[in-house]
């Protein structure tokens, strides 16, 4: 494992940690992406603008990354359309049922030592490992 394989993800993680800290200090909110998106769709008076602004920030960041460093969007998985759409649907449904995803539970909740978030993170990691193992077994190892 090269030093770059440690330093670059660590830098990315530190930026994510800074971002969620700014959200908490200034707005008093957890940066849980599933909750922010779901709340934006509900369009509650006075609780929509910041959500839309956050999502716009994510998209703007994506556009800037694509302009400067398009390699970060490399996708070599070659997954079929059916698998992608199934994954997207389950991710959307599951994160709202489970009140959070990698950002809300995995980063914000664990940092606060929330027992719910610890359990959620262990659960989604475990089932992620199972899903990859099952797909690997069914496709004969090619992922």
């Amino acid at each position, binding site marked *: 494992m090269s030093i770059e394989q440690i330093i*670059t*993800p660590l830098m*990315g*993680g*530190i*930026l*994510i*940690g*800074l971002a*969620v*800290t*700014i*959200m*908490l*200090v*200034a*707005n*008093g909110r957890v*940066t849980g*992406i599933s909750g922010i*998106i779901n709340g934006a769709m509900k369009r509650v008076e006075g609780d929509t*603008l*910041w959500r839309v*602004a*956050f999502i716009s*920030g*994510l*998209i*703007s*960041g*994506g556009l*800037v990354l694509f302009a400067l460093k398009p390699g970060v*969007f*490399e996708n070599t*998985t070659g*997954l079929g359309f059916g*698998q992608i*759409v199934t*994954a*997207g649907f389950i*991710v*959307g*449904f*599951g994160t*709202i*049922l489970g*009140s959070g*995803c*990698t950002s809300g539970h995995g*980063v914000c909740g664990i*940092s606060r030592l*929330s027992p*719910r978030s610890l*359990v*959620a993170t262990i659960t989604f990691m*475990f089932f*992620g490992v*199972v899903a*990859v193992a099952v797909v690997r077994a069914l496709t004969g*190892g090619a992922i």
Partner: protein
Amino acid sequence: MKSEKSRARAAVAYLVGFVFAIGLGLAGMTQPQKVIGFLDVMNWDPSLIFVMVGAIIVHSLAYVFIKNKKSPLLDAAWHVPKSKEITPRLIMGSALFGIGWGLGGLCLGPAIVSLGSGQQSIFAFVLAMLLGMWVFNKVEKALPFKK
């Protein structure tokens, strides 16, 4: 009428989204093969561990200072979840999310950020994800779980 504070909160949220996106890109979270590699016990790519380590170290240290403050800078009260109850709903939802995460190699934030790359498969994933949320909200009352 939007209050000045609500505009300021939106400006902060935009900045947070932007920095978060750059962080996800650097972290490798926008490359589905990296996420799948991280979840693959047969051929493990541990690099994404360092994303969580970096984010959690920064945020947990900051949280020690933040938690004793009376209120956030731009709002009258905190909006941090307080529930401690481990419910079947939490487990079921997290399990489903994990399965989807492993199947597609994408979670919500990286998917939204990757829209900027214009790939069709990302648009398909995001639309399906929004549909999943919409369906959940429609059927929530019929589900045998409480929050």
